[in-house]
């Protein structure tokens, strides 16, 4: 019998941990999340159902530790040489259960990339923050990037170079004093224990030296989070406003330093794109499972739906795209894992190709899920089948990190060497 494991992956790209990550993630999804996920939408504000699922994944199994060095209690994934492939495998399994959980889980590592990943490990900050993550309760981090006035401008590094950032960091003695207002970070709304804040040390400047990535523990005086936004889906991913009002942190909480923060921030974008593609791949694999059952159990013209040529055409298109997107997921993971072959993770080429793969996967997924829902008729939009959940959830994957238009611009800039876009 065909299963989701029959979708193709380049086997030579996988991590030695692939089997274990997959089995643990699959078991967690099947036992902890899928039986209860249908009620997640109503749990968006309080996470009474969702929080225990995070607790088992991150705290009890311990995945929240995995990026930190081994001697600090972590699993050393940050210097393993297969961070990309490992993350892809795990994110796929989590997204198969719930892509909102996958993004919340994935984003906990996002700011940590700046300090835990070779070649730019910041040992002092790792030592400072590792204990926070070595516990059995779920601990989250978040990247505070987007601002009210400019939306995706923050992620648009190539053209605006940080000049629109209005969150300021001023060095006073041995402390940064941060002031500003951020919107929409995943794991805000009271969830995160630690923020990575994108700031400017010189408002209006395009100089990469003036972009600063500074860590702020969420309980620092002056750091305030609003209540979570209500959204079309992705209930497990809380987003809110965050205000930084004369927030003071030690000067060494800056991730990498002048020039390097801006450079390695692009690596954050690359990994965000890998995460996004992985979420799409995992969600689509779950839709395949649901659709396969539906097409076998439902009859049309007196025979199983899947045995009708016209329905089979839709089913085939869907399986084709899942297969292609899964290959793409691991291809991009490989590119991030082997900078010696493909270039630095923060290079313009790797960022642009990640954008291209991400928006290709998202566009395909959204269109495919619409067709699948139409094929299923009234059952496509009922929550008993969960297909509509994946459709709602994946839509925001297409929208985040600057949305489709920013993806298009970065791809055009790199492939066509555009100079003014």
């Amino acid at each position: 019998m065909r299963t989701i494991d029959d979708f193709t992956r380049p086997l030579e790209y996988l991590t030695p941990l692939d089997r274990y990550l997959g089995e643990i993630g699959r078991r967690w999804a099947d036992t902890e999340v899928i039986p209860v996920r249908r009620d997640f939408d109503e749990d968006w504000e309080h996470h009474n159902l969702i929080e225990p699922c995070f607790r088992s994944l991150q705290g009890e199994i311990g995945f929240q530790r995995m990026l930190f060095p081994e001697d600090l209690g972590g699993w050393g994934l940050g210097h393993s040489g297969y961070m990309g492939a490992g993350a892809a495998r795990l994110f796929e399994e989590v997204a198969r259960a719930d892509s909102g959980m996958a993004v919340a889980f994935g984003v906990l590592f996002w700011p940590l990339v700046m300090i835990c990943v070779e070649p730019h490990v910041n040992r002092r900050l790792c030592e400072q923050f590792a204990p926070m993550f070595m516990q059995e309760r779920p601990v989250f981090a978040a990247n505070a990037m987007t601002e009210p006035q400019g939306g995706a401008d923050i992620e648009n590094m190539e053209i605006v170079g940080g000049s629109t950032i209005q969150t300021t960091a001023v060095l006073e003695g041995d402390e940064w004093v941060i002031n500003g207002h951020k919107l929409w970070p995943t794991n805000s709304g009271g969830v995160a224990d630690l923020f990575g804040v994108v700031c400017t040390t010189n408002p209006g400047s395009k100089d990469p030296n003036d972009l600063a990535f500074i860590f702020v523990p969420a309980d620092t005086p002056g750091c305030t989070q609003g209540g979570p936004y209500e959204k079309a889906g992705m209930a497990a991913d809380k987003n809110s406003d965050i205000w930084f009002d004369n927030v003071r942190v030690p000067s060494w909480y800056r991730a990498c330093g002048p020039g390097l923060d801006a450079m390695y921030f692009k690596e954050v974008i690359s990994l965000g794109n890998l995460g996004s593609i992985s979420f799409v791949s995992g969600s689509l694999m779950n839709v395949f499972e649901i659709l396969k059952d539906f097409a076998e159990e439902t009859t049309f013209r007196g025979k199983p739906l899947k045995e009708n040529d016209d329905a089979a055409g839709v089913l085939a298109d869907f399986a084709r795209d899942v297969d292609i997107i899964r290959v793409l997921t691991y291809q991009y993971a490989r590119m991030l894992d082997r900078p010696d072959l493909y270039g630095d993770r923060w290079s313009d080429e790797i960022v642009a190709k990640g954008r291209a793969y991400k928006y290709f996967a998202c566009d395909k997924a959204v269109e495919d899920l619409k067709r699948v829902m139409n094929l299923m008729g009234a059952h496509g939009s009922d929550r008993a089948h969960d297909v509509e959940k994946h459709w709602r959830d994946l839509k925001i994957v297409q929208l985040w990190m600057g949305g489709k238009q920013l993806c298009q611009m970065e791809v055009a800039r790199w492939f066509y060497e555009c100079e003014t876009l």
Partner: protein
Amino acid sequence: MSYQELFPIPVEWLEDADRSMAETVSAWGEQEVKARRLEHKEDYDALLLPAMKKLFLDIGLQTLLLPEERGGGGMNSPEAATTATAVLENVGAADTGIGFVFANSLALQYALAIAEKRSDEALGSAAGVFTGDDVSLVSLVLPGYGTDTGDKPRYYGLDFPATARKADGGWVVTGGPARPQCCGASAAAFAVVCDLGEGVPGVLLVPGDAKGVQRGPAFKKTGLAASANADVTFDGVEVPSSALVLEGMTALRGMLSWYYMACAAVCAGSLQSVHEILQEWGDTRVIKGKGQIFKENPLVASLMGEIGGKMGTSRLLTYNLARMLSKPDVYGNAGGGNLHVTAISAFKQVGRLAMEAMDNTMELMASAGYATEWNLERYWRDVKTVETYVVPETVAETCMARQYFNLKQL
């Protein structure tokens, strides 16, 4: 500039009375739905049901197509198709779900009061469902996918939700569990497409409180909060002979043609509100750190152009269908093969264009389009739900191919 000026349809197709009614419904939408949405969100009891009461009872949509002598609005002629479209467009602009609920009622009102082979007996029997003092929700129960194989009478490959057999001067309806189009948990009556024997279709009006009607629990769905839906089973439900609203394929297709028109109007109307939302977003956002107004960026503008084109095309298609249905002397019976397939095609196109326009709008608004605060996502969920409910894609495509290319076997 008004929506009509932006996205024109031939003005001569609407009478002053139609425009007046559309304006009344538009005002209802602003006051009773949009103005109260931030406070009540999608709450059925606090927002949607009170709004439906005003619309159905005070404004009178619940009896719009019924003859005056039966306590109705007196619009019981085919010309009401354009009126209904103008009304439904404005209902859809306020709330797609309420529009969809009304579309169900409208299709049944058409079958009772306007259809060529309507039954006075059925109208007399059914009028009471519509003319009470309370909101009376009715739902179509249409053929759908089945769970068993083998040969038996089917409707274009879909299973009938029930069979109806004559007994003691009336009918006995048996079938289900079936999925109504809307309001399965709350409908006062179901218009059930039944196999009357040897695959001859008919629609029987089954009161929701009739003995043998069993409703399942209300289930959760993507959108359409105005419709509390539940699967329903008909366990040997006895109804009088006057419950037979229509009989035969042509009559059924006629009712469905009006239903597709109504649903297309709801989808096209939803785009009115999407236009408002995107206009505000495009006017007020700046990008690229240069103070560039969002809508003035060429890439954004190109997508906005596409979105606008889809809005205009949806509206044109919907009103053209309404015009054709309003003129049976020119275009033929609503249940004739040509017009019925045109109705299916128009609905599918409008639904698809509406979804594309909303998807693209959400892409331009990014996360804001996804947040409930901006209201776009509500229309996006609702229209998608309508698109999946009304007719399965496979069936629509088969019907169109059969007609357009003279298929013999499918």
